[in-house]
């Protein structure tokens, strides 16, 4: 067991820090209050990701032939940690490099790869994921948005909701029903968001302006070639995607950075001598580090070529706990952060509130851990 970064890994981290130092605006922390899906930040992210791409730092973990450097999952983790600890200046584009791109590489047609991957590797395109519906949140398989094959096209009708980035996204990674079977009746369509019949409405959110939406599909027509994988293969594909997503977001790094900032502020004003506050801060730090190391244990397995399944849900739950306790610590001891006194901490709160909800609720993660890690007999259905 070796728990030290190699010199090369440390140098890679330094390179990213230097890049952030040179490419984030001086007022970044205030600027980031616009929220990851806002028009201002989306435009900033487009420029920022373009510069990352110019420096080979947008998709360095992708294969060389698809615009990457073929670096291992540790480099991907270092990159993601530094981005998240800075408040994720890539905005919604983090999804592209984490899981949309890798999913397209694995399941996409040549046409899909040629059409979509260059926009991701150059840092120009924004995607949204059309998963949740009014009646299908945690129970995703009950979704009802329907795509009916008519000749050589699909006609899509239905509604998605709580969709991040939909307002400015170029393409939607859309789950829809093509058959009656609960899970095997679901397919994935890659739908350009400017297709006639799509209506997007913003839902005001705690995360910030422009982040969460409802999306309506009224007789939206796309070609059959917009389908990713086979009809009915969606469940298998998103299991792959979500395992990437669950390990791909090192929220513990942002949580720990926010905790350090909070401790520094409390120290400067003489409020960090109180043993009760110190004990609370250390307890929260232990949760951040537990999340970090449980994630690392799985990244190590991925780096060695193993497939990581249900354990990703365990690591994600550890991250959710850490994120939550840091937010609670700040709300309890530095409530003025939520009233704008400390933009970085407010940003952490806004980014962090989704941790246990988006990409599969915390309770769904626990169900997966119970059945597939602990191997408990399953609940009756």
């Amino acid at each position: 067991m070796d728990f030290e970064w190699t010199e090369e890994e440390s140098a890679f981290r330094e390179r990213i820090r230097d890049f952030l130092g040179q490419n984030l605006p001086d007022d970044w922390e205030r600027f980031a209050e616009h929220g990851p899906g806002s028009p201002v930040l989306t435009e900033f992210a487009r420029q920022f990701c373009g510069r990352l791409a110019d420096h080979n730092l947008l998709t360095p973990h992708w294969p060389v032939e698809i615009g990457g450097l073929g670096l291992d999952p540790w480099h991907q983790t270092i990159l993601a940690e530094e981005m998240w600890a800075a408040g994720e200046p890539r905005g919604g584009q983090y999804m592209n490099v984490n899981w949309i791109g890798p999913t397209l590489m694995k399941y996409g047609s040549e046409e899909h790869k040629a059409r979509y991957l260059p926009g991701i590797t150059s840092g120009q395109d924004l995607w949204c994921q059309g998963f949740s519906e009014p009646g299908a949140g945690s129970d995703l398989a009950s979704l009802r948005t329907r795509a009916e094959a008519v000749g050589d096209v699909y006609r899509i009708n239905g509604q998605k909701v709580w969709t991040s980035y939909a307002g400015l996204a170029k393409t939607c990674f859309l789950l829809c029903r093509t058959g009656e079977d609960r899970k095997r009746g679901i397919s994935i369509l890659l739908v350009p968001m400017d297709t006639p019949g799509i209506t997007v409405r913003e839902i005001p959110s705690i995360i910030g302006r422009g982040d969460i939406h409802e999306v309506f599909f009224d007789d939206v027509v796309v070609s059959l070639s917009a389908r990713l994988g086979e009809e009915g293969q969606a469940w298998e594909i998103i299991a792959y995607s979500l395992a990437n997503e669950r390990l791909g977001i090192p929220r513990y790094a942002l949580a720990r950075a926010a905790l350090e900032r909070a401790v520094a502020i409390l120290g400067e004003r003489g409020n960090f001598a109180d043993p009760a506050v110190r004990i609370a801060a250390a307890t929260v730090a232990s949760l951040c580090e537990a999340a970090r190391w449980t994630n690392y244990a799985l990244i190590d397995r991925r780096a060695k070529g193993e497939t990581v399944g249900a354990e990703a849900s365990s690591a994600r739950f550890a991250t959710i706990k850490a994120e939550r306790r840091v937010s609670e610590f700040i709300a309890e001891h530095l409530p003025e952060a939520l009233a704008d006194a400390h933009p970085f901490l407010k940003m952490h709160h806004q980014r962090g509130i989704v941790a246990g909800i988006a990409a599969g609720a915390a309770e769904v993660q626990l169900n997966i851990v119970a059945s597939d890690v602990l191997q408990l007999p399953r609940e009756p259905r």
Partner: protein
Amino acid sequence: MNPSLNQDQRAILDALDAMLRPWENAPVHDAPLFASDPALEKALAEAGFLEVAGDPDLGTVTAALLIERLARLPFAVEAAASVLVGPLLDDRGAGPLCLVDARRWRRPVRFLCEGARVVVLEDKRVSAFTASADQFRAEPNALFAYPVATLHGLPEVRKPLALNSTELRVRWQVGLAAECAGLLAGALASTVAHVSDRQQFGRPIATFQAIRHRLAEAQVRINGAYWLAMRAAADCDPGQAALAALYAAETARTCSYDFHQFLGAMGMTLEHPLHLWTYRLKLLTGELGGVAGHARSAADALWGPAPD
């Protein structure tokens, strides 16, 4: 970064697993408050397992792995102090090694017996003495699943050691974290087996979400405790060691009652061996000031001591 077991560690754990087979199952004929077996201690010593930390090629992570693995057994065996602190002493002696916190010497001491070498953590120094029968009271009725005894007091005459207080505290915390991680893993496995078998309302009680979620949360925490302990063992850094001990103690606190709860009435009897793990945790959890004590040392190490 390469946190998987290396070849040596894999080989040692494989050899250890093979050796431990006779002690994998809890004693069934009687229902003891604690289980110990001199044959296990002898086998461990003879095979040289307790000397891994002193071997520069194996070091403290291998020691922590060994402590964690041994703690999964239903049998209590003194390993943590011997493996992690033993190599730092020039007169280790032949008996068990006991660690005592001078501020809290009234606490029951694990494995304390005549001839035990007792290392005392003081604020500014570390000292040691060899226990004689008139210095302690055995506690055969203690509920803890270790053999324990209580000191009458700290003897006046103690030998100062070259070891400094921080060094001892850190190794104590690392050993405690690794031992808690193993005990928790043993307790979790034992509880999971029970709730998967036990039928109520016509189905295994493990199929009820009220139980599934709490056990799943326990898995998440126990996995974290394991990794924090190993991480801390790697460089024996005071901040990491305190965080690992803090997290382990907090995990033990949150899980132990749940595990007994899930056993129903058997959780309050000695029919099921669960207490052999949880009632070791109950003693470990309070060492060095417990959760708050570890948290304070973590805060001091991470952010500097509190201003007066």
